[in-house]
């Protein structure tokens, strides 16, 4: 039972990481109608910038503002220089232009930081494990990620539902013309949203630093999963992204944890393990296909 709880927490933690990325992506999707493949690259930029500063200063907490600033700046620059030209284009052009950005970012990061992965330790404050229940130790750092992720989710909820910017964002994701009619400079709104999305991606990158390897290509690995989240949740819906992130995090973790042993009841050991792992990797894609077949616009589709 404690094992199950631990896996549930793991799923939750993976889910909130996905949410940080998916929130920005879904907003950019929903409001500007842009498919941004370079979102993963912003995550990488955040991870590199934050980790590099943390390595130079020896302080993880100094790395955080660096990661946020770098990601937001790069995000705003991408919006200003490239994405702005893509609003009126079709999805195909957007996919390709941002695909090109992935190539460029990967090489620039290689040029700046070299090919060796970077490394940052968990800050002493968050190191070690705590006993949540008897027999259920859990790393403090992962708990911290869950807490930060949930706080951000709450913050986004308040931002979207209680502020003027949030009102515009909501209006923008259902009816772009309406925002223009309100006399708002849409371009500024777009840059703000893009920067906000980049900020969250950078934060995710920084938080991933001590757990994962900070290396070239880390963005693409998580990018596709994030897109799956966005599509399952319904393009443009923060709430959908939140639900889908947690759903995907938990489903993915549970499949990996329990499918092989379940299959072992019906077939031989090693084959069950390999097949189970194979199906588990496909799991999120199967889930997406299923959701889309039942609800072609995703779980929480805004009606546009």
């Amino acid at each position: 039972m404690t094992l199950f709880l631990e896996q549930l927490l793991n799923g939750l933690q993976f889910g909130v990481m996905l949410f940080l990325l998916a929130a920005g992506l879904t907003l950019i999707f929903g409001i500007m109608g842009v498919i941004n493949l370079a979102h993963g690259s912003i995550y990488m930029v955040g991870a590199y910038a934050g980790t590099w500063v943390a390595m130079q200063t020896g302080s993880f907490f100094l790395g955080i503002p660096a990661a946020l600033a770098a990601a937001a700046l790069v995000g705003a620059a991408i919006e200003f220089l490239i994405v702005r030209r893509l609003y009126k284009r079709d999805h195909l052009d957007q996919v390709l232009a941002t695909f090109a950005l992935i190539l460029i970012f990967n090489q620039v990061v290689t040029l700046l930081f070299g090919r060796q992965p970077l490394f940052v330790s968990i800050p002493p404050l968050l190191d070690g494990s705590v006993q949540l229940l008897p027999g259920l130790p859990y790393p403090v750092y992962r708990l911290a990620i869950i807490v930060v992720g949930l706080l951000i989710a709450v913050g986004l909820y308040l931002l979207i539902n209680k502020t003027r910017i949030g009102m515009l964002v909501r209006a923008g994701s259902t009816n772009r013309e309406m925002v223009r009619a309100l006399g708002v400079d849409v371009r500024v709104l777009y840059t703000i949203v893009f920067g906000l999305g980049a900020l969250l991606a950078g934060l995710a990158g920084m938080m991933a630093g001590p757990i994962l390897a900070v290396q070239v290509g880390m963005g693409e690995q998580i990018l596709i999963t994030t897109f799956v989240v966005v599509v399952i949740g319904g393009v443009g819906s923060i709430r959908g992204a939140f639900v889908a992130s947690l759903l995907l995090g938990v489903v993915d973790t549970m499949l990996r944890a329990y499918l092989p042993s379940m299959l072992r009841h019906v077939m031989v050991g090693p084959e069950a393990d390999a097949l189970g792992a194979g199906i588990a990797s496909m799991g999120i894609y199967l889930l997406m296909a299923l959701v889309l077949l039942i609800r072609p616009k995703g779980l929480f589709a805004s009606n546009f």
Partner: protein
Amino acid sequence: MLRRTFLALAASAMAAFPALAQDPVKIGLITTLSGPGGYIGQDIRDAFQLAIDMEGGKLGGVPVDVKVEDDALKPGQGKQIAEKMLSNDGVKLFTGIVFSNVAGATVPDIVDAGAFYISPNAAPSNMAGKECNENYFVVSWQNDSLHESAGQLAQNLGYKTAFVLAPNYQAGKDAITGFKRYFKGEIVGETYTSLDQTDFAAEMAQIRAAKPEVVFQFHPGGLGIAFLRQYEQAGLLSTVPMVLAEPSMDAVTLKAIGDAAVGLNISSHWNADFDNAANKNFMEAWMKAYNRMPTYYASQSYDTALAIASALKATGGNMDDADAFRDAMRKADFESVRGKFKFGVNQHPIQDWYHLKVEKGEDGKPVIKTVGDVFKDHGDAYADQCKM
């Protein structure tokens, strides 16, 4: 008429040119420089170049011209580069490939064209057995040996139960097969992770629940870094020891993991602290040239360059006589940085394997120390299938 004479003259002039000054031997180095595996290709390229620089632009007294190209971990790309070098540039000697799938697509073309491929790393099992080729040499190891030695190491250390993990792909499955071939204890858990997986929390929980005496895991590159860090963060490192094959713990991985690596057991065929003249020579030159710890990939590539140098020296750099070059290669007449070295019948290495351990060094940073033997004169299981 006049035109034809001119062309003929020009052609003979071109042909005559190499006779005046020895044309450098062209070596095609196809390797992976982009993406997460890029650092491996970089070490392979740098070590090969180091051997050449140490001889002043020559190998075995013969001037060489190395052409480096990035295969981007795409089999098709590797093949295309080989093709181009073979037919456009007349390259007859190749090396450098990091990954098995690129090698699988590229090497058959090279050897079929009568050129040589000397592998500094990848050595898939089919090419060690049935598909072995007289123009194909492997200086590194056969893939399985890495994990067989890890299995033997776990056996030597007296563990009775093991939990094994590897990514769900061919090399991962080979790793677990190799490990189980020599580990005689009980496997209490066998888990295949996904190749695009970065979070291993679920696996950590499974390991804790299974309570094994030892964990064996094979996760190359960034996967391994993530795995080891999370292993430590989950508090497992202090309770369950781990045995690794060298791809999961090279110098770069160690640097990325830091203190979390202390106490790990590694099986390897080379280590930076080896006490032989060739290795000291290599280490000194490397640190001077690049000022970073070399990975074992670098050592293999350096050995590859030395092996090529020995053959070039014996043949005087004449690549037109393939038989002579092959005979010279087979002798393996060079001082390997790993000490003893010879080729088996399938032209894969027969060599010793060692037990390494990560310890805290004098400056407080973790270092990999050689602490004992695992295998003596270990070849591979596929040599019997090779009919040459």
